[in-house]
């Protein structure tokens, strides 16, 4: 059983997703129990995986026992274990929140949700480039349907853009995979790392074209500057639990950038090493600047949170652009914080919107809130965390990142990061004062807060103070992860003992 643990994060949601999709009708409460139960089980599996990976050993699972480089492998190291744990924690909050009623607005919510989890987990675990494409498609197909869950004009329109863009992105992904296979003759990422290192001159051009095409694809997923325009609309029109789960989707893009360029185009790749570096740093700064403007311009709380997701993408990408193990460790810490907090803010925005009647989440005068005190405190906490104010976790993440910058990078990173934080702070305090203090003199709405909804919000936002309390062990873990990432030879030796992993 224990050796099959690595494949469980894919198999478990697959099985429960299929079970949930057997009947479109049927008891909602049964589906909820199955959906929440499976997600909770996933959380347990993820904790076990982190325990397995924390020692620094890279282990793999060969599907059908076809050994690498020929078969398809699932690779578990510190980074993938961390990402799976993060997905499971986020998903549990979302699925419990959705069980308060969002899942009844359309059909098959829980089944699609599980399939989406399967795609995300698969993308984090796979060690094979084509398999990565397949898992991308799984998570995208599920996300298309989830984005339009419940219907409505705004969702259909945002969904059409999202689907068309991602279909074009998939086409580019396939071309890039084809080019890389043609030049290196393998699809296993570890094997590719070995092959890239021994590449003869004329093929280097092909490989670098393929590598940069991949950067475009991952940039589309991660929503980097010229490719992010689909994000604000899609995220702000999606149903709240889906938008919160989507907080991990941009991080799938960040993860794949980290994985592919640190493994295949790591230090051993010779002239092709760090091929993404000239692009990533400047694109990151551009994303930060553009999203800070977007945060200030947003006139709707959900749109505001969607732009905050973009700010986090810019910050994370800047960490990749700094290209030192310290920066990567810091960015992983920030990634945990920002995924959970922005997810929680999406859920909180929904709760606030529900109590404001017609005004919804738009930043205009509305009905007074029935539970204004409680929601206000949660909003204050979430806002302070996401803007990066001490004592919450955003401040620690940003401080780690700023310390990791080299003196040449500091003049660019420090002002931009701090100004983006200031913009978030201004926009959030303006939003908060409109939402909680300026209201018509009317009766408060009679919609009570659901217990499951509150659990979802507190589960996700509560991660921020928890991250502060556990900052020591967590940052030790992320630093160890970064060390592991910066030495691809360890993974090469684990998967391909005969391939000369001592480079």
């Amino acid at each position, binding site marked *: 059983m224990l050796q099959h643990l690595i494949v469980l994060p894919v198999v478990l949601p697959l099985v429960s997703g299929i079970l949930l999709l057997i009947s479109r009708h049927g008891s909602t409460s049964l589906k909820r129990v199955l959906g929440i139960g499976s997600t909770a089980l996933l959380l347990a599996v993820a904790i076990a995986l982190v325990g397995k990976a924390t020692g620094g050993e890279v282990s793999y699972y060969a599907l059908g026992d076809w050994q690498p480089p020929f078969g398809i492998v699932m690779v578990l190291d510190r980074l993938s274990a961390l990402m799976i744990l993060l997905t499971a924690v986020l998903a549990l909050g979302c699925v419990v929140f959705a069980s308060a009623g969002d899942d009844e607005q359309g059909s098959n919510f829980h089944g699609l949700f599980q399939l989406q989890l399967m795609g995300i987990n698969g993308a984090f675990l796979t060690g094979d480039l084509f398999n990565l494409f397949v898992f991308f498609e799984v998570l995208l197909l599920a996300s298309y349907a989830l984005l339009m869950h419940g219907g409505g004009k705004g969702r259909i*329109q945002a969904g059409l853009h999202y689907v068309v863009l991602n*279909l074009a992105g998939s086409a580019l992904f396939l071309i890039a995979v084809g080019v890389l296979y043609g030049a290196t003759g393998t699809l296993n990422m570890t094997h590719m790392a070995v092959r890239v290192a021994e590449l003869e001159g004329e093929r280097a051009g092909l490989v670098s074209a393929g590598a940069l095409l991949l950067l475009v694809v991952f940039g589309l997923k991660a929503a980097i500057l010229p490719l992010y325009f689909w994000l604000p609309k899609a995220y702000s029109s999606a149903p709240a639990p889906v938008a919160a789960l989507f907080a991990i989707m941009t991080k799938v893009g960040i993860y794949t950038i980290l994985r592919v360029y640190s493994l295949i185009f790591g230090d051993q790749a010779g002239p092709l090493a760090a091929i993404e570096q000239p692009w990533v740093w400047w694109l990151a700064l551009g994303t930060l600047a553009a999203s800070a403007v977007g945060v200030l311009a947003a006139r709707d709380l959900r749109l505001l949170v969607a732009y905050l997701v973009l700010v986090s993408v810019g910050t994370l990408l800047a960490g990749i652009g700094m290209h030192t193990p310290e920066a990567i460790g810091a960015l992983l810490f920030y990634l945990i914080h920002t995924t959970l907090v922005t997810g929680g803010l999406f859920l909180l925005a929904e709760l606030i919107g529900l109590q404001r009647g017609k005004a919804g989440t738009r930043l205009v005068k509305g009905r007074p809130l029935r539970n204004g005190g409680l929601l206000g405190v949660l909003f204050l906490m979430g806002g302070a965390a996401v803007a990066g104010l001490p004592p919450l976790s955003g401040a620690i993440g940003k401080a780690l990142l700023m310390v990791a910058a080299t003196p040449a990078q500091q003049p660019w990173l420090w002002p931009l990061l701090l100004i983006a934080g200031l913009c978030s702070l201004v926009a959030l305090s303006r939003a908060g004062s409109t939402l909680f203090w300026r209201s018509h003199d009317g009766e408060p709405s009679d919609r009570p807060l659901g217990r499951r909804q509150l659990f979802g919000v507190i589960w996700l936002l509560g991660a921020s103070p928890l991250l502060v309390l556990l900052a020591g062990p967590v940052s030790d873990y992320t630093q160890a992860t970064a060390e592991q990432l910066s030495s691809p030879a360890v993974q090469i030796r684990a998967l391909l003992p005969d391939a000369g992993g001592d480079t």
Partner: protein
Amino acid sequence: MESLYAITTGILTACGLFLTLRGRSFPVVVGLTLLSYAVNLFLFSMGGLTTNGAAILDGSGNYADPLPQALVLTAIVIGFAMTAFAVILAMRARGDMGNDHVDGRQVDEPREERR
């Protein structure tokens, strides 16, 4: 053969790109379909083109790379599902928004009427 193959793929890609950038949802869907055809052809050729090769290794030495065939099969299935989804979505958008423009707004209609 290589140049014919490359030209075919290139023309398909160019047509697909042009149509994908149109403003109405039907040309966009057709464009995406052409694009996925082009990508499938490209994938098929990524192991190098061989003629008279055995499909399955039979010991004679000259054989076709089997991996691209397996990959292109996967890509075709996924592309087919995605196209079906995009068609349904475009029809739904047409029904919900009352027009078939990808932005949901009829921006170019008045100009066409004036002509």
